[in-house]
Each structure stands twice: as structure tokens, then as C-alpha cells.
């Protein structure tokens, strides 16, 4: 071992931590682990809102489509009834 290695051994000799280190470790060991708080991801409320809007929007759209279809059917029936009445009156007149 040459002079540099001797000097390194001296420079890097062990040192003690500050007084009370042992007690601090003992206290940290005895300390109960901090309770884990369930942290909600920031995006979760927004995602939930989007999902609710999509579902309710879909239901509303389906309801709206049903109403439109019903109105179209009623209109068609009224037109058909009108046409039938018109034909019936023509038939009566021709007699």
C-alpha cells in the first residue's frame, strides 16, 4: 500500500453520525407507518362526469328518436286516413 492509499484510508475513516442517531432510529422503528390515504386520481371525477353524460345523453337521444318515430307514424296514419276518407267520398259521389 503506497502513500496515496494510506492517505485515502485516513481520509475515508469511519465517522459517527450526530448524537442521538440510535434513539432517532428506535423512534422511527416504533412509529406506526403513516396510514395510506386513498388518493383519487385527478382525472377520475372528469371521467365519471363524461361517462354519466354519455349514458344519460344516449338514453335521451333514444327517447327523442322514439318520440320522432311515433310522431312520424301518427302523421302517416293521419295522411292515410285522409286519403281513405277522400277515396270513400269519391266512391259515394259516383254512386
Amino acid at each position, binding site marked *: 500500500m503506497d*502513500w*496515496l*492509499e494510506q*492517505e*485515502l*484510508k*485516513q*481520509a*475515508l*475513516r*469511519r*465517522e*459517527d*453520525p*450526530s448524537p442521538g*442517531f*440510535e434513539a*432517532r*432510529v*428506535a423512534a*422511527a*422503528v416504533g412509529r406506526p407507518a403513516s396510514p395510506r390515504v386513498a388518493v383519487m386520481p385527478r382525472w377520475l371525477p372528469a371521467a365519471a362526469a363524461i361517462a354519466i353524460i354519455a349514458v344519460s345523453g344516449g338514453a335521451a337521444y333514444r327517447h327523442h328518436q322514439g318520440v320522432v318515430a311515433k310522431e312520424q307514424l301518427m302523421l302517416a296514419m293521419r295522411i292515410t286516413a285522409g286519403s281513405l276518407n277522400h277515396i270513400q267520398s269519391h266512391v259515394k259521389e259516383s254512386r
Partner: protein
Amino acid sequence: MIGLVQVETTIDFAALVREHQSMVFSLSYHFLHDRDLAEEVAQEVFLSLHRHLDDIKSPEHAVFWLRKVAAQRSIDATRRRKRRPQVSMEEVAEPSFRPSFQDPLLRDILKRLIATLAEAPRMVMIMRYQEDMEPSEIAAALDMPIGTVKSHLQRSLALLREKLQRRGVGEN
């Protein structure tokens, strides 16, 4: 009738802390060059030891485990700090006079020069000269090929010698 004898090995945690606190703290302190952070790391290492106490098979295993974990945690801490090297070569003050052998000033310069080495060679040098570990022991502790350990030692010694000679130390 031959009964089974259960041998219980009780590892005394408090005794391990008392016995090895300077080893763990110094590994971290010489690596990080920061007393407060080194104490934090040393405390983390002992808390981790407490959690893994059942895995410790013998006092020798405890020493191996502590050195390995202290090295890992110190390297993690320096990466978290994101200020490597903490002391740049340029910051190592040129002494106004030539430090001589067995001079506290020379030892201080050496500590600072070691703090400028890259992570792996720095830890290798600290384990070699603080703990007097053989290259094979360092290789096992750092999960590193023994050839790499020897190479880090040779290169680091050559670098330190060159830096010191530039400061007029160790010239023939």
C-alpha cells in the same frame, strides 16, 4: 427418543444499529458529502433492515446486507438530488501552500476529489478504503464484475494521483 431441537437465532436490532451506525453513516457520508442527507439515508437503511430482520441469517450477513443497501440508497439519494457531482473538480480549492503527507488539509482535498468521481468508482473507492474490502467483496456488494471493480480502483487512483501532483503533492 431423539427430539427436534429448534435453534432460535435472535437478531438484536438495537445492537446492530449501535455496532454498525458509523459504518452505514460513513459509507453514505463519504459518498454524498452531506452529513444531513447521509443521516437520512442511514436511518432509511436501518428501517429497511428492521423490516427485513427475518431474512438476516448471521452477523456477517447483516454486515453484507447493510453495506449493500447503504450503497444502493446512497446512489438513489444522489440521483434524487440531481446535483452530481456535488463538488466539481474546479471547486476543489487550490491550496495556497503545498499540503504534506498526514496533513488534515490533504485529507480534506482527497475527500473532495473522491466526491467528484462518478457514482460507481466513488462507491468502489469508499468501500475499498473506508471498509478495507477486497475487490471480490466489493463486486458482490455492488453486483459488479470483479474486473470492473479493479478497473475503477486503478483508474480512480491514477486520477487522484494526477490531480494531487498538479497541486504539488506526491512529486518525487
